[in-house]
């Protein structure tokens, strides 16, 4: 296990370095630089002004010099300054990241809460009407683009019935929970959840549908095994057999897939945030890209890559812990 971890961490480091180099080079290939982007907001800027700003920001150096000096700073734990805000990138990203994580975690919880019962139901009622209805719902859930589902939900629940706000952010969830615990006042949490609900559902539905199908096929597979028949033959209650024997085994492959789905949820969050004006890194990166704010985009890519790689590693480790047949090498 120790050697496995060391090898994987070294590997992660190599991948991050490669990601940094490729993304930095790609960004420099984008037509127009940060100063052009600033210029479009300040028509009064002269050519001399622009050249001076370029000089000041180090944009006149050759690309490899820029990338090298960025890497040197990064090695010291400094992600550089945003070219747009002239403030350090790292706090800027950290300010936006919690909103994205809240959205992703909420979507994931929704996905599990919908997927497990739906998958179980369709597996147990296989080839009966409940299964058909459930399967149709699942196919539709997988087939709706998230931005479209978001629009439809806004149309129905925000514009027509005005149950939820159409867009925006209701304050930090962690702050709201802290307030609930310390002062016992649930109003901040309620407000935060009211804003989180529509984007969270929008992001979670596709994963819920996908996971429901995984749970269904895993359950069907497990229910056909000999040990289930033995458990039933022993005279155990059907409920016990299903929950204790079947579901537990069926969830093993589902957990792996769930880990991999986090990547999808994060990617999906980039789109959903733009639909709901959610102030997370997804929306921020679309803006940063239009500003050509190289250090900010590099920072976002590095941090999301780090999150991706860490999750994948955790899934592999978890998987080995859950299933003793798997050995990490």
């Amino acid at each position, binding site marked *: 296990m120790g050697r496995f971890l060391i090898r994987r961490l070294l*590997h992660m480091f*190599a*991948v*991050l370095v*490669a*990601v940094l180099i*490729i*993304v930095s080079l*790609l*960004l420099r*290939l*984008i*037509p127009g630089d940060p100063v052009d982007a600033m210029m479009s907001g300040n028509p009064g800027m002269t050519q001399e002004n622009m050249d001076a700003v370029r000089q000041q920001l180090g944009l006149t150096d050759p690309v490899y010099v820029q990338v090298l000096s960025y890497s040197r700073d990064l090695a010291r734990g400094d992600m550089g300054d945003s070219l747009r805000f002239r403030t350090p990138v790292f706090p800027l990203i950290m300010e936006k990241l919690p909103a994205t994580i809240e959205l992703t975690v909420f979507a994931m919880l929704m996905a599990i809460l919908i997927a497990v019962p739906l998958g179980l139901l369709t597996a147990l009622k296989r080839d009966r009407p409940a299964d058909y209805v459930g399967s149709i719902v699942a*196919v*539709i859930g*997988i*087939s*709706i*683009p*998230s*931005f*479209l589902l978001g*629009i*439809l939900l*806004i*149309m129905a629940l925000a*514009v027509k019935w005005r149950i939820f706000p159409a867009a925006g952010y209701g304050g930090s969830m962690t702050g709201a929970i802290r307030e609930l615990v310390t002062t016992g006042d649930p109003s901040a949490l309620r407000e935060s959840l009211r804003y989180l609900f529509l984007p969270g559902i929008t992001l979670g539905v596709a994963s819920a549908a*996908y996971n429901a199908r*995984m749970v269904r*096929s895993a359950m069907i597979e497990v229910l056909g095994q000999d040990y289930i028949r033995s458990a039933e033959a022993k005279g155990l209650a059907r409920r016990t057999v299903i929950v204790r024997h079947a579901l537990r085994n069926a969830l093993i492959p589902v957990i792996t*897939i769930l880990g*991999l789905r986090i*990547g999808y949820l*994060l*990617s*999906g969050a*980039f*789109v959903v945030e*733009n639909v709901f004006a959610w102030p997370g890194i997804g929306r921020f*990166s*679309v803006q940063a*890209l239009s500003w050509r704010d190289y250090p900010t*985009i590099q920072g*976002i*890519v590095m941090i*999301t*890559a780090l999150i*991706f*790689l860490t999750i*994948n590693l955790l899934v592999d480790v978890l998987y080995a812990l859950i299933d003793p047949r798997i050995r990490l090498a």
Partner: protein
Amino acid sequence: MSGVALAQPVVEVGSGPPSSRTGVRRLAHELLRSPKGMTGAILVGLAILAAITAPVVAPHDPTDTSVRAKFAEPVFIDRSSEFPLGADNLGRDTFSRILYGARASLAIGFLVTLVAAFAGSVLGALAGYRGGFVDTLIMRAVDLQLSIPFILLAMIVLAVLGPGFWSVAIALTLALWVNYARLVRGETLRIREMEYVVSARAIGLDDRRILTRHILPNMLHSILVLATLDMAFVIIFEASLTFLGLGIQPPTPTWGFMLSEGRNYLAESPWMTLFPAMAVILTVVGINLLGDWLRDAFDPSLRNR
């Protein structure tokens, strides 16, 4: 990706490539008997039909604007309307735009899936068959690709290339080839050691012949299923990018762009959003149903269930 559980052996060991004639006929026969497969085929067929016949069927030019027709109501609300599904903020006919929009969606779907499946499969087969340095190189590229959220990568690539049909096609292909590379590499590692491949090598066939004649045909089914399900994903992804303003640009009518415009007029002219939404959903549901059915049809272990 949707194809995680697909990496199963599909053809009996040693049976060689399936004979296509009887295979296709058997498949068509099974399709007719499966409600799921038929529904999918009909929906996809309708979308293809819309794309092909758009110039003939469309009552208006999809880019024709008219001040008079701004926000014209659909026929079922206003009997005298000359716009079957209403008109948009520039007075363009929604129905005609949906028909033409099918062209962009399906073209991107087919093109990207085809190129990604081909390139990914070739690279995966090379990695699995050759091993060593080639394998390391290709698989590290896969790792790299998988460590960046695909939408972020697509956004950066689109910023470099500028928005447009071909840029979207390239960005999406770059995001998708890894799935095939991983699937095919895994299968190749498995099949490479099978007796019939070892004997093909023993009688002196060269690597290229072994790969193209003996190894790849045996995973065509898995690739085909993954490709079908991927095409659904590509259409969704293209619409999302266009929705974000990074994809195919106007005046080309696309479903993604219609949706992003319709969003601004949800309350007054919901038809601007609802009908293109239905077009996207029905097409993608159709492709997914077809892919599901193909998976079941190809998987002998599911046949008698």
